[in-house]
């Protein structure tokens, strides 16, 4: 399978009053086309920071210090072999990537949606930003159809003028002339065609996501919808422009169990239909089992273990993975084992392997040297001195 995204040695720091929080300490991950990679870890391990770093959404006082994020999915460019390093490109380039090639959905749907814009407006924002040419062409076709069907002279004249405006927009969507026209009171009615086209697509995507009565939902505001519906709208915004990669940051953590089941079902069906690659961040091992092909376990800014889902559950190698699995309540388990100690403060993390103070299998070398992640078995990577050969 071809690679879609590769993160190389990503380091992110946050400069706070209490000191420098070393949130990410050299992350290495890769996602192939069509695969779902789960990232599992507890609060404060750096999962969300990883996702934000990929899309260059880390704001000061945070800073991506080092590393590369190579992306092979950019449309219209044929850089197939080396990939493009997203961290070294200009902001204009990133703007075209976000929402278009790589989309992200967040944990709380109520805070991801703008409360003062209608659902239709928010989803069509995505189309209007990234699919301007397609929308203009569709609008022109619609106008031409209306010209043929109509016989009233004045109307045809107005339609012809509007068609001219759209043809100009095909060249430059936001030229000075167009922007001027869009302010003039009666003239800016040309925008209706654009809105109609966008609404058509919005209704289409909402129907695909199983939202009942999409024509009416388009007029609604976020506060009028329930949590499950809001999360569907967020997914609609993310998938509007058919991105190659979807980053999902704990999308179902705040939802009830039955609604979570509905949302996971939707994501699974979309994955199959659209061949979507997903980076799924969660703390719930059960969700990972359902949806993901491979899993990466994170602790305190480091990746501990990466393996295929079945392999990880059958044979967890890293001590943290083992401890995590033993502390999750399941159908069969009688006793829950807890991990001694607490998650470390990342201003002054433990030296060497960050997990060593809480590890039952710690060796002397663990406090001195940080273990590098290595492929120990077929496609099973671990970062632990107990398994590193040589």
């Amino acid at each position, binding site marked *: 399978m071809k690679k879609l995204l590769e993160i190389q040695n990503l380091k992110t720091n946050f400069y706070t009053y209490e000191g420098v929080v070393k949130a990410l300490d050299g992350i290495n991950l890769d996602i192939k086309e069509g695969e779902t990679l789960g990232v599992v870890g507890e609060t404060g391990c750096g999962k969300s920071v990883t996702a934000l770093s990929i899309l260059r959404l880390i704001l000061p006082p945070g800073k991506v210090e080092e590393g590369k994020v190579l992306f092979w999915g950019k449309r219209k460019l044929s850089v197939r072999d080396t990939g493009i390093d997203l961290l070294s490109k200009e902001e204009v380039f990133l703007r075209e990537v976000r929402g278009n090639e790589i989309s992200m959905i967040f944990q709380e749907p109520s805070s991801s949606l703008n409360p003062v814009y209608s659902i239709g407006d928010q989803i069509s924002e995505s189309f209007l930003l990234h699919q301007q040419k397609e929308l203009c062409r569709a609008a022109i076709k619609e106008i031409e159809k209306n010209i043929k069907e109509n016989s009233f002279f004045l109307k045809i004249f107005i339609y012809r003028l509007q068609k001219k405006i759209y043809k100009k927009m095909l060249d430059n969507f936001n030229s000075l002339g167009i922007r001027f026209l869009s302010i003039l009171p009666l003239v800016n009615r040309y925008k209706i065609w654009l809105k109609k086209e966008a609404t058509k697509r919005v209704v289409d995507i909402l129907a695909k996501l199983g939202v009942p009565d999409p024509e009416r939902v388009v007029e609604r505001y976020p506060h009028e919808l329930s949590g499950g519906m809001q999360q569907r709208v967020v997914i609609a915004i993310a998938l509007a422009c058919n991105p190659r990669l979807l980053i999902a940051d704990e999308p179902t953590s705040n939802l009830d169990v039955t609604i979570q*089941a509905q949302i996971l079902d939707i994501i699974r069906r979309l994955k199959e239909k659209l061949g979507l690659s997903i980076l799924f961040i969660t703390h719930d091992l059960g969700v990972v089992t359902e949806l993901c092909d491979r899993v990466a376990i994170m602790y305190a800014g480091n990746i501990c273990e990466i393996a295929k889902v079945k392999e990880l559950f059958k044979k967890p190698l890293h001590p943290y993975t083992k401890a995590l699995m033993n502390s999750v309540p399941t159908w069969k388990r009688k006793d829950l084992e807890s991990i001694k100690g607490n998650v470390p403060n990342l201003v002054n993390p433990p030296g060497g392997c960050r997990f060593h103070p809480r590890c039952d299998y710690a060796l002397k070398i663990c406090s001195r040297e940080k273990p590098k992640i290595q492929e120990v078995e077929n496609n099973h990577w671990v970062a632990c001195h107990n398994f590193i050969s040589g």
Partner: protein
Amino acid sequence: MDVLLEIKGLKKYYPILGGVFKKKIGEVKAVDGVDLKIKKNECFGLVGESGCGKTTLAKTILRLLEITAGSIYFGVPEKIRKEIDSRKFQKLKKKHDLSTFKGKRLKNVRKKIQIVFQDPSSSLNPRMLVKDIVAEPIKVHKLANGRALRERVGELLNYVGLTTDHFFRYPHEFSGGQRQRIAIARALATSPDFIVLDEPTSALDVSVQAQILNLLSNLQKNFNLTYLFITHHLLVVKHISNRVGVMYLGKLVEIAFTEELFKRSLHPYTQALLSAIPIPDPEIKIKRMILKGEVPSPINPPSGCRFHPRCPYVMKKCREEEPPLINVGNNHYVACHLINK
């Protein structure tokens, strides 16, 4: 075993005020007729999704909210409860019904019933030192003071795995799990018999959750406590409870012993809930029962059985008549027309 807490026909309606004169134009029927018996030393798990009325039920037991109808009997021996049943002696009812207590009697009962809330960050006063937070219930009930108070606070912190070093710190200096431990220490301060735990581990990480659940089990054994454990996480409830009750839209739809409920759930809603749990084991494949639609609003609950619009086995009777909660054997109660034919 003795019944420690009995709830009969509990209803809590929140009024909706509207119009120019703020008249009552409707009601949110948060809890709409709940009957429940919790035995001494038992851990009763109450599960349900958001909006089903679990937290409201918890708060009414503690009289943090006034009930609209029904009675609560705490620590009332069986003989007296039976007599109240038979509708004689209304005076007896008044004497024992927790929902009518006022003043000193209510304060006394509150020594015996305590609560641990969901969010440890908002249930601890951020401007109080830990030692004052844990000492507050003792001071309010005048149970100890001076040196004895300090020793008792130290003892309570030890029970939950904290030390006297933590006396002079503020809640924000602790992690989520530790704050929840402080909340548990505070709940134990008056040596209660009954503790209501309203989603105590929902805001915590998985490994911290394991620590807190193990702590709660140990405390229950050591101090002969009775728990009402409210949660939406079914696997957690399976781990810690003896009996489980499932709530939907203000009513209990199924009650059974934990093993029984998970092996032989009868109510369609329970079955859907159980099948929706993501299982952290790739070998097990469960056929998902995906419910259509969303939870209806408690302002206008559906007629008849409240679950009927979403039930895959709905019959004509379900739309017209509300099914009663019936014992189908082995203390397994179900409210469903399909089962109770």
